[in-house]
């Protein structure tokens, strides 16, 4: 008598096992996102989704392509390394209007940079953020006490913000 007399039970069980395994593979294929495991144990497409977000700060190189006069003035002064949007705020929207690109739909519209024009900063508030005297500031950083340094006058009365030094023709 063969040792495999009742092998039919085992074959049926093995068949069920294979079927369950195939179902598992199909379900797994359906629920695991396509790009999962592309670079590691995560959804690879997430990187592209995060990288595709629109920017809000255009970057000083972009500003300088049109406003080269300001860039030239800034170059000779103490604020040479202070980028445009450090004081004027995020202006990618202004550039988009210049290029005629709608920020929302990325479609072409009539170019009009005046639509999202930056607000002229109030120098009495803006300059004080960096230049108010405080013992915590690094030594040598230009600081004034606004209460004693011509109180009531905005800084730009005497200092040209793009080139603020009182020497070398920087001042107004």
């Amino acid at each position, binding site marked *: 008598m063969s040792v495999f007399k009742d092998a039919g039970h085992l074959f049926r069980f093995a068949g069920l*096992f294979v079927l369950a395994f195939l179902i598992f593979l199909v379900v797994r294929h359906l629920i695991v996102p396509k790009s*999962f495991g592309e670079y590691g144990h*995560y959804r690879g497409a997430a990187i592209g989704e995060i*990288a595709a977000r*629109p920017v809000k700060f255009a970057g000083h190189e972009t500003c300088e392509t049109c406003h080269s006069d300001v860039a030239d003035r800034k170059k000779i002064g103490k604020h040479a390394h202070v980028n445009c*949007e450090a004081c004027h705020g*995020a202006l990618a929207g202004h550039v988009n209007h210049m290029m005629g690109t709608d920020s929302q739909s990325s479609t072409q519209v009539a170019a009009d940079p005046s639509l999202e024009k930056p607000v002229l900063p109030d120098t009495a508030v803006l300059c004080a953020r960096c230049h108010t005297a405080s013992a915590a500031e690094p030594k040598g950083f230009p600081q004034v006490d606004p209460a004693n340094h011509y109180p009531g006058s905005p800084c730009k009365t005497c200092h040209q913000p793009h080139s603020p030094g009182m020497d070398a023709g920087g001042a107004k």
Partner: protein
Amino acid sequence: MKISRRQMLILLPAAAVAWESVMAGTPEDAPNYKMTDHWWGMLIDISKCIGCGNCMRACQTENDVPDGFFRTWVERYHVSDEDMTEPEVIAPDLCKENFPFAKEDGRKYFFVPKLCNHCADSPCTQVCPVGATFISPDGVVLVDQTYCLGCAYCVQACPYGCRYIHPEKKVADKCTLCKHRLAKGLTTACCEVCPTGARQLADLKDLNDPIHVFLKTHSVQVLKPQMATGAKVFYNDLDGSVR
């Protein structure tokens, strides 16, 4: 070739695993930005930081960070005790107020800007149970917010306190090192607006990046080096009292 049923049962799962690695591949999507060419970090020069808060405001604008939450912040240290081990640290919301006036008392004051250290061996990505946070091939620690469950394991795991649960989305949120700007060839929003150059984006794989000259001529440190996180935010002039 004749394969027995038993052999088939063993081969099937092996074939499935093999096919998966064939299907995965390593394609690069962005045409002008090759992730494997970069390894991003940041250089922070403590001696240059003036605590103006431009970085915090710019980060909030650029990344729609909810009010009262921060991807980057600035701490002001006042080393006021004799042992120089118990500094007074304040970190106001610079989007709303400035640092209070600091009176000269002969003791040391300095500012420490903080943000995600984009660790090469990051504790936060290791604890994620679903693979929703990861280190991208260019060295940026990111969160896949469509995949995150909001369990906050990563928030607890980060030794630098750089993560939070987004109050509306209810998922983990953190600094992306302005990944969307890097991919377009721009620097991060915080580096763009830093008026003194205290923050500088650094590509550690690019030997032409000025960071390599800086590293040669300065002694830089990372925060909590004892945790062996492989932090990639390097601090110059970091005081020993900084925790």
